[in-house]
């Protein structure tokens, strides 16, 4: 292995080196400082006589006398089933004091794209026990469904609740007789130690750690490492899912920190920035992470992703949530107002969406009336929300009886349907039956999105009267 002491320039996270032998694009590099410390990096640009290297742990301590070794291979993740139960740092080294990891295989962390022809369309309902999700924005196996949140909001509580409660109903009764087990991969990027503890405590308390692999890049860890952490996590997830048959749930938090790291590298390379200073290739880059969710024809396992991001200034049009929403299969919105009203989880269903819901629900999957109930609640809640603005101006008395019913509906929807607490696990029957309690407040003829037979079966007349009384 050739060693160079020909660093010409150090700038931000980048190091430029003169070379006299060709170096592969994306190859891994080790830089040894004069103090004998080893830093790792990756080739960003390779020309015949020089390369640009992006260091993962920052360039502090590197000088022109440091030596550079090119390892002749792209970045790999050692994978094995024994990773379950382990805690690793953001570069994949164990930090739990456990034994060395003996890999089965070392896999390229830049995964290859799944051939669209080889995918299996995701349609297995995952019951999260959270009504705002199960009832209104159903998650299915193999989906990528991010949580869009804001700083200081309880997105972690929701993510943990999902990780604890997620089941696939038939399997619940039948046991895991298809031999597939559930695993959680947790990839932390730039979160605080406190947040990290929140996750770890919960994993330990519930015994979930045994079936989890944790990758930790904390707020004070190198920012550039954050571009590697999710790739290590997803490589592990793909291995467990498509080689070992696990149903893997990947939680990535916080994607905002990941994107900030991308921006930092872009700026250091003096690239032409895209919108708001983020690189023009951020869509492609994010897609290469998010598209690693899914199911494959003929394979037992699945990769389901729940990335979490905090929207800068709660702005959904900011490039990070915007590009994410263009790639993921929906989004769950955490809402500041609902949170201050004490709604747990404070999910605003109106801007939330699960694009894969329609194929995962209905007769034989959840229940025949599910689609209709959800559509009807959406329409009614949206109408109630509109009326709230009006009430502020004209007062309740100026509204018709019909309008008042919609206002009451919106209130009760938040208080009874969305509100449930982080420890309540509702099955889909319960969620739908709360839905019908609420819909029964509205006049029967207003229910134009539900089939007649369902109205016959589930609508209760007295609810409408109680409200009138």
């Amino acid at each position, binding site marked *: 292995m050739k060693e160079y002491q020909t660093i010409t320039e150090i700038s931000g996270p980048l190091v430029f080196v003169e070379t006299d032998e*060709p*170096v*592969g*694009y*994306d190859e891994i590099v080790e830089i040894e400082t004069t103090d004998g410390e080893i830093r790792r990096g990756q080739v*960003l*640009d*390779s020309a*015949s006589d020089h390369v640009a290297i992006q260091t993962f742990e920052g360039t502090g301590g590197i000088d022109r006398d440091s030596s550079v070794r090119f390892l002749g291979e*792209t970045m790999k993740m050692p994978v094995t089933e024994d990773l379950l139960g382990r805690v690793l740092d953001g570069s994949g080294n164990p930090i739990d004091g456990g034994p060395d990891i003996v890999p089965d295989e070392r896999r*390229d962390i*830049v995964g*290859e*794209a*799944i*051939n*669209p*022809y*080889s*995918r299996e369309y*995701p349609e297995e309902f995952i019951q999260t026990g959270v009504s705002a999700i199960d009832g209104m924005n159903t998650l299915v196996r*193999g989906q990528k469904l991010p949580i869009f949140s804001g700083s200081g909001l309880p997105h972690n509580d929701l993510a943990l609740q999902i990780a604890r409660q997620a089941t696939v109903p038939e399997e619940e009764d039948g046991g895991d007789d298809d031999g597939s087990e559930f695993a959680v991969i947790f990839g932390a990027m730039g979160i605080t130690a406190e947040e990290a503890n929140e996750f770890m405590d919960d994993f330990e308390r519930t015994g979930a750690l045994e079936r989890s692999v944790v990758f930790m890049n904390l707020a004070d860890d190198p920012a550039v490492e954050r571009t590697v952490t999710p790739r290590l996590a997803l490589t592990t997830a793909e291995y467990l899912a498509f080689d070992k048959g696990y149903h893997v749930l990947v939680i990535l938090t916080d994607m905002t920190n990941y994107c900030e790291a991308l921006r930092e590298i872009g700026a250091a390379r003096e*690239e*032409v*920035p*895209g919108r708001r200073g983020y690189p*023009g290739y951020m*869509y*492609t880059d994010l*897609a*290469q992470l998010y*598209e*690693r969710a*899914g199911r494959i024809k003929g*394979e037992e396992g699945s990769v389901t992703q729940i990335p979490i991001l905090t929207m800068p200034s709660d702005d959904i*049009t*900011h*490039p990070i949530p*915007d590009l994410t*929403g*263009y*790639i993921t*299969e929906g*989004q769950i919105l955490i809402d500041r107002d609902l949170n201050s009203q004490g709604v747990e989880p404070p999910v605003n269903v*109106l801007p939330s969406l699960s*694009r894969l819901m329609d194929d995962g629900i209905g007769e034989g999957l959840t229940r025949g009336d599910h*689609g209709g109930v959800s559509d009807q609640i*959406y*329409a009614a809640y*949206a*109408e109630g929300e509109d009326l709230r603005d*009006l009430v502020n*101006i*004209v007062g309740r008395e*100026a*509204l*018709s009886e019909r*309008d008042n019913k919609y206002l009451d509906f919106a209130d009760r929807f938040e208080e009874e349907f969305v509100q449930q607490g982080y420890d309540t696990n509702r099955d889909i029957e319960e969620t739908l039956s709360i839905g019908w309690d609420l819909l029964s407040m509205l006049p029967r*003829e207003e229910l*134009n999105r539900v089939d007649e037979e369902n109205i016959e079966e589930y609508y209760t007349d007295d609810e409408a009267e109680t409200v009138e009384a």
Partner: protein
Amino acid sequence: MSQATESDVREDGVIESVSGPVVTAKDLGARMNDVVYVGHEGLMGEVIEIEGNLTTIQVYEETSGVSPGEPVESTGAPLSVDLGPGMLDSIYDGVQRPLDVLEEKMGSAFLDRGVDSPGIDLEKTWEFEPEVSEGDEVESGDIVGIVPETASIDHKVMVPPDYEGGEVVSVESGNFTVEETVVELDNGEEIQMRQEWPVREARPTVDKQTPTEPLTSGQRILDGLFPLAKGGTAAIPGPFGSGKTVAQQSLAKFADADIVVYIGCGERGNEMTEVIDDFPELPDPQTGNDLMARTCLIANTSNMPVAARESCVYTGITIAEFYRDMGYDVALMADSTSRWAEAMREISSRLEEMPGEEGYPAYLAARLSEFYERAGYFENINGTEGSVSVIGAVSPPGGDFSEPVTQNTLRIVKTFWALDADLAERRHFPAINWDESYSLYRDQLDPWFTDNVADDWPEQRQWAIDVLDEEGELQEIVQLVGKDALPEDQQLTLEVARFLKEAWLQQNALHDVDRYCPPEKTYEILGAIKTFNDEAFDALDAGVPVDEITDIDSLPRLNRIGTTPDDEAEEFVAELEDDITEELRSLY
């Protein structure tokens, strides 16, 4: 993609530098846009810049691990597609490699690199039935025979446009592969079922004509208010989740085109899987055959190489033009053209070109208009008429239509279907904003609708537009004072508008019946709402209070016409109109 056949000997080069999808090479003997094979693995790429001895190449595959010093080989031919029977019922990547063949060759569900495959099966035989005999004179573009390609489509074998033509000296009939000669001309030209065409060049035509026939879509708001012409262009911009993909897929399923080319450009993998799963199960509303029999899919999803995303729209439109040349009406959907524009931006920034607006290259507008110009209703060089309609989804960042891709697209296309986040949030689908959208084809298509659907189609439509306009104005007042403060006639207008929105404009793409609405039914639903309107205003004039008018039992049935099967709809509507009339008249 096409396997280059030209065999001029060209000099091989050596890689000088690698930066993501952009590679430079020294000493390469290649022309602009030539296809080259890069590195030891032979990754496919295209020449995009030549400066002195340095050639810049965009590579259609991942370049991890590729290093300077590796060889580059030129094919001496531009990026071309294979055209011939077998394109329908296929799914390709952005450079026309069949994805099913790749799966088989790679033996994996994951896309490996350096694997190539022709766009059409070279081994398969097709039944060729000649349309010419020995001694006939044929010119370039002429149809010389027919091949039953799918249950829906007879594939026309044509003299390639770059042939001279001449007298037929021999004709075959029977089963042949696409590379075997089926017709020979006196000047030595040999015609096979397969031809090649460079994707960045429009296939020649005689004349572009003014479109006068609608591409009916089975979507009420489109056919009813903002129709697209066969040979027309349309854009569907909207933020994420507003319904671009559902709209594109509905058009691909139900539009009355002969051929559909559906391009998933830089979007989700699962959306393509959905099409692959659904289309074979669905009948084409025109022929009753399964939808794949008229469909060619191109999938270059967001995680697939970005350079191939740039080329996939060209691959698609070249295939579309080929079927147009046979005299077919082709509809092409590109979801999403913004991803194509972003791919241009990504490559351009790697080339360190001077950026234009928002980092897009200065040639963005030119590329977009060149592409949309390939749409149209044409007289072909063989005398047939055919059309290519292009419908492009646009994904504006933050849903803001003032950005360059949306704005440059709107300057070109004649139909604008504006999707609206607010409507989508309240699950009003399709979330097409009826105030902002427009179709410049409306007037030229009216004669078709009056001849084929109903005499008073334009008047009924105008009535609906007027009511919706009035509702828009009234809503502004309602926001300030509440509905009950309005006079009764205006309250009634609001009710009528509510039915227009709920029963007519809204259409559930997920409902087995509602997802497709023939123009006749679109007209009937509107008629039923109009009947209610007229009878209701009569009742109001006779002193019946609005509350009583809107409380009649039959009214909610208006919302159920859409989900009533097409063959029962007419009767359902007739009965409903009678009931509404009777109930309302009994009130005074």
